[in-house]
């Protein structure tokens, strides 16, 4: 196939998948009945939110630094958007953006001191920052409603054309699902463009050999701060999307809370299982894992155990993640065939 044909077929696959995503709520409704369809649409919205968070986390990872503050910045974005709408009366459209900007501003404040350290020390800084946000939301009762959290059921993004009003966030969730797809797509598009342009190449150079990158004139600190701020902006938007979907936020320290530290770990897991080297890795990992989790509700509290086991298996047998399944299958096939024929795998 020529380069052009390859691009065309890739584009076609993309269009088909995108169309399927857009049709998902209808497929689920017709297949599973209205009630269940609504529940699944709710899950799909959460998947969208988490895809955005995981992809943003991977964007930071492109410079070689791992942030475990994802849930923390989702909390900042979510609370900022919700509070600005509920207490200052701003339009949810505006506060969705402002939530991202507040998260980005907070990230900008901490970025310089944080990037003075590298590797595991940076991870610890971001991890603890997430906890700080959680406890701040719990203790600053006057502003945030404290540990009980706060509700704002009457506030939803809406569009008014003439006398008709379209409210995103009705019982069927379908409008909100499309809003989520729209916002997440735009954010992912920008991240994709950045990764595949010159700045993405610079990030890669920092990840591979920061000493050399410095010596050819790359301002490493500036680039790391930039991507951290941009990623946290997108994570903040994910938090805002979540906030206007559930209409109730709380900082409770249970793993079920999306703002809890566990979410950051799950993001990391989705990224690794999907494939950290590919832009599509986090998308695939998040979708598969979250849908599997819903299908397997029966396992109850054993879920983290199973998820952990899956992670370990993937790390051992598919270090490039699920996106590289096509590469692994022929290798496994050859190995298996070799076993059955009694040969050593290497000679097969």
């Amino acid at each position, binding site marked *: 196939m020529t380069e052009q044909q390859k691009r065309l077929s890739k584009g076609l696959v993309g269009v088909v998948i995108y169309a399927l995503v857009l049709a998902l709520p209808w497929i689920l409704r017709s297949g599973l009945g209205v009630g269940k369809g609504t529940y699944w649409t709710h899950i799909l919205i959460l998947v969208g939110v988490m895809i955005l968070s995981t992809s943003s986390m991977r964007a930071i990872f492109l410079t070689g630094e791992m942030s475990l503050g994802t849930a923390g910045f989702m909390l900042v974005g979510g609370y900022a958007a919700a509070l600005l709408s509920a207490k200052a009366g701003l339009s949810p459209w505006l506060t969705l953006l402002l939530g991202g900007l507040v998260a980005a501003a907070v990230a900008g404040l901490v970025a310089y001191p944080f990037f003075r350290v590298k590797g595991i020390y940076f991870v610890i800084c971001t991890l603890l920052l997430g906890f700080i946000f959680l406890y701040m939301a719990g203790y600053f009762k006057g502003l945030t409603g404290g540990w009980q959290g706060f509700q704002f059921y009457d506030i939803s993004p809406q569009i008014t054309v003439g006398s008709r009003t379209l409210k995103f966030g009705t019982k069927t969730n379908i409008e909100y699902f499309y809003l989520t797809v729209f916002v997440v797509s735009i954010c992912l598009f*920008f991240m994709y*463009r*950045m990764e*595949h*342009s*010159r*700045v993405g*190449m*610079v990030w*890669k*150079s920092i990840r*591979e*050999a920061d*000493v*050399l*990158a*410095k*010596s*050819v*004139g*790359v*301002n*490493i600190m500036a680039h790391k701060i930039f991507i951290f701020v941009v990623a946290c902006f997108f994570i903040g938007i994910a938090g805002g999307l979540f906030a206007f979907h559930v209409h109730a936020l709380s900082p409770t320290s249970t793993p079920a809370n999306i703002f809890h530290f566990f979410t950051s770990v799950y993001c990391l897991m989705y990224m690794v299982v999907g494939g950290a080297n590919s832009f599509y890795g986090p998308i695939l990992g998040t979708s598969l894992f979250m849908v599997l989790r819903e299908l397997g509700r029966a396992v109850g509290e054993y879920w983290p155990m199973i998820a952990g086991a899956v992670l370990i298996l993937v790390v051992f047998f598919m270090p490039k993640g699920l996106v590289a399944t096509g590469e692994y299958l022929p290798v496994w096939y050859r190995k298996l065939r070799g076993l059955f024929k009694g040969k050593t795998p290497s000679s097969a």
Partner: protein
Amino acid sequence: MALLEARGLSKRFGGLDAVSELDFDVNEGEILGIIGPNGAGKSTIFNMICGTFKPTSGTLVFRDKDITGYSSHRVARSGIARVFQGNVLFPSSTVLDNVVMGAHLHTRLSWFSFLFGGPSARRRDKALRTRAMEILELVGLSEDADTLASDLPHGNQRHLCLAVALAVEPKLLLLDEPVTGMNTEEVSEMLDLVRMLREKTGLTLVVIEHNMKAVMGLCDRIVVVSHGRKIAEGTSQMIANDPAVIEAYLGVDDDAA
């Protein structure tokens, strides 16, 4: 007028004087060798020039500009490139991409094209790739352009390190032990390459090297450092006969020799 002037350059690590009160000039167009026994402070000198370490005291003036204490990327921006001691490369990028990355300072894109690409970014990328191919031809790696840097043999990786540094288009190039771990044939190949580069591009070079034969044959002038101090300076002839140099390398006692 010297290209780079170091005056009273010192670096202390705790109680250890790694480099103390060092004065030397690098003249435009020359190849200056810095030699000395192990632990003499040679690499520390490079690290201070390149901004990896801040000098404890002293000044570095490059092209009439004080660059003392500049961070690494600003040093590169003022026109100094460096080849590291080990083979420091972008290992999982192709040979060509390594050189293209080396040309970071010559990207010359608007911030929008830099972040999001587009037609002008593609055109610029093509131009940079053509330029990178020229550099690869110069160092004799054009056939390996699509190989991963980590798959190259040691000698070729060394050449690639040089190519990446050349892509910076520096006025001054610092080579940290360019021929370590090479056999005689590779050494002479590398030396020919460095000489050819100087002739073709008018580059000024500073070379740290352990291989005496290589340094003596290559450098116009040599600075000898021992225990962080300059003990001699001059042509290779002068250096080879200097009693202080012989003492530093061989010692005075018969036992130590």
